[in-house]
């Protein structure tokens, strides 16, 4: 009986996986209809008036990178799961320009399957951030998380340096590109290198920590902080990261903190596996032994000096 049940379970699982794979393949095939034009930098069509073939450049914002999409979180989706079915015709109807786009919370909010990501809390945090308070509706999730390419990485075993590079590229996408930056403001984009001139070993900081480590308020209930703070509230005190109770444990290394803080070994073993943060990587015993030895040296000097004074008087 047990044997029969095991076989049935294997069959059911295989059927389920096969169904999912089939659906993904079917969607991918369906998406090819869109990607035939939107998957490349140019597209061709026949002018129905003249009957001649026309080649045009695709507007860069509407190009979907096939390989990036295939690796993204939404890879198994059909284009029309989020976009109107009316895109099926060409030329696309003009009213589709007014199509209202979904926000993350529209699909992920209140869904048990995504409960662990706490989208509602992320939304609240985002609403309190400068991105939202300064730009209201103009700033949406897609500004940072491109739905066609975004893939989750904080909740993975990827190397910290890769996570840092991926996440910082999201910020720099606007903060290092005047054209994109000025979509929301008439201000001149501040020069990031100059603004962070005060930071010792600037290049190392940029490679090893994310912008949000200093620019977002930490939150215990969500993994990645979304409450971006005004510049006056950015972290400037070195010890917030460079100490045993490092802020990085609540931000960058939050997911990987499994070893906890071991009093006996090195502090912040997780940080030590992938980086080196002066002040945060310390050995408890080394600190203790050094203090004991300094005390011994001081006591030795004190005793020796006292004896010399006593003997001199005699």
């Amino acid at each position, binding site marked *: 009986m047990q044997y029969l049940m095991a076989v049935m379970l294997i069959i059911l699982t295989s059927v389920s996986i096969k169904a999912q794979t089939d659906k993904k393949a079917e969607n991918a095939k369906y998406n090819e209809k869109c990607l035939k034009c939107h998957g490349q930098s140019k597209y061709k069509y026949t002018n129905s008036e003249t009957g001649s073939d026309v080649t045009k450049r695709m507007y860069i914002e509407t190009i979907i990178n096939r390989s990036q999409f295939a690796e993204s979180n939404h890879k198994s989706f059909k284009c029309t799961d989020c976009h109107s079915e009316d895109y099926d015709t060409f030329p696309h109807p003009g009213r589709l320009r007014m199509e209202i786009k979904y926000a993350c919370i529209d699909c992920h909010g209140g869904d048990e399957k995504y409960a662990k990501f706490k989208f509602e809390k992320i939304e609240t945090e985002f609403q309190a951030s400068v991105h939202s308070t300064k730009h209201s509706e103009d700033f949406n999730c897609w500004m940072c998380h491109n739905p066609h390419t975004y893939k989750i990485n904080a909740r993975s075993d990827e190397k910290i340096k890769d996570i840092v590079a991926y996440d910082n590229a999201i910020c720099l996408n606007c903060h290092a590109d005047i054209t994109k930056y000025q979509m929301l403001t008439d201000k001149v984009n501040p020069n990031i290198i100059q603004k962070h001139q005060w930071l010792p070993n600037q290049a190392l900081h940029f490679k090893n920590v994310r912008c949000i480590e200093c620019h977002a308020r930490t939150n215990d209930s969500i993994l990645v902080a979304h409450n971006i703070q005004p510049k006056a509230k950015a972290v400037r005190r070195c010890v917030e990261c460079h100490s*045993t109770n490092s802020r990085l444990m609540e931000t960058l290394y939050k997911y990987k903190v499994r070893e906890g803080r071991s009093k006996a070994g090195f502090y912040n073993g997780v940080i*030590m596996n992938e980086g080196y943060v002066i002040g945060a990587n310390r050995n408890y015993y080394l600190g203790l032994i050094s203090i004991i030895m300094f005390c011994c040296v001081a006591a030795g000097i004190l005793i020796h000096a006292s004896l010399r004074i006593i003997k001199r008087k005699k």
Partner: protein
Amino acid sequence: MQYTNPANPFIRFDIAVTMHNISGMLLTANYLVFLFGTITTPNGRFYKLTLKGLIPRLIKQFTYYTFGIFKHEPVPFPVTKDSKFNPLQQFTYVAAMFVLVPIVIITGWALLYPEVVLTKFISGSGLRVNDFIHVIIGFFVSFFMFVHIYFCTIGATFVSNFKSMITGFHESH
């Protein structure tokens, strides 16, 4: 930097780091002057250790410091024109100036420019090993410094050894 704690900041971290960096650079410059002087002048001869009978001589000097000094015994190895240091002094100076301080300087510069140090050293992080050596040897150099300054006070008078550092002449007991 070793004992930094945000709740109890003895010294602001960025100030501590800057002071540490400047001190390291000054120490390097000073060490180069010392090395130049040792190589180019006859002063270097005082650092030539004679290994034969070294341990008994070290014990003799150590015994003087721990007991003899309180009994006002004569110094076992008086300062002469050819022997500026007693055996214990010579041994610790050679260890400090030719082993410990160079290690602190090299590992210190490696930490100042971490991108040039091997990122991986054996199985761990090169920086971690480098830092570990820098800190431990740094402690020993600090212990040496405290004892060294204290021993300066045991000359003929409290300040006579400090005077010798400037004038170059030793005042006998």
